[in-house]
């Protein structure tokens, strides 16, 4: 557990080292692109979750209830 954490930290450090070697304007563009994709990703999930969070229309549950009834009264 602790070992994994240390390794995770090493990776992050290495990433930082790599970043330092880049030109500042490259770094800026990279960060900007990352931010934009992140923002789009967030919006995308929001778009999807908006529908997920809508109340489920009764029709859906009615269908399942009816499926139960047609299965027979042998329960």
């Amino acid at each position, binding site marked *: 557990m602790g070992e994994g954490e240390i390794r995770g930290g090493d990776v992050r450090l290495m990433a930082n080292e790599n970043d330092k070697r880049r030109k500042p304007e490259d770094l800026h563009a990279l960060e900007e*692109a990352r*931010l*934009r*994709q*992140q*923002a*789009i*990703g*967030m*919006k*995308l*999930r*929001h*778009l*999807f*979750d*908006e*529908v*997920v*969070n*809508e109340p*489920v*229309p009764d*029709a*859906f*549950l009615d*269908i*399942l209830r009816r*499926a139960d009834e047609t*299965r*027979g009264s*042998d*329960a």
Partner: protein
Amino acid sequence: MSKSGAAKPPSSDDEGFKRELVTLIPHLRAFARTLTGDPTAADDLAQDAMMKAWDARASYQMGTNMKAWTFMILRNQFYSEKRRSWRQSQLDQEAAERTLVAVDDPEAPVALDELRQALRTLPEEQREALILVGAGGFAYEEAAEICGCAVGTVKSRVSRARKALLATLERGGYERDGKSAGDAMRAILGEADRLSGRQG
């Protein structure tokens, strides 16, 4: 011995199956909405898929990924219906473009609207891959199973979709009420800042 009813009497498995299926309905509706773009058609599709899943419950193995399984059923249903009503597809496309923004919320942020529009500009297979991975919470492997293609194919579709979406939003590469939406990306960035509660 003609019907599955005789072979598979009502069981506690059925109850468990149904309970899980009910929890998936909201997700099936959301996925259907992104495929059809039309809320009414989407609910019809999701209901059909739910029925199909229920009828096929004997072939589902409890404990495996039921969400992916039902998504696959829904997707297959969508494409087989689409093939059947091929001549309808042109109309569907137009309807989708008109009604994709079917949110009765005048306060709905512009940014979401822009993203919906931009999504419609993506090729279908890229859109569904991006939705499954980027919004549906599926791993690439699961999305590949749902779409019936290789994992690498899903990866490249998602990657192309992300690039195309960004380019469209930055360029305003689609028409909106006659004028192009150049500020779409700025709106989305602003929205994202607000949502994440970032402090300046």
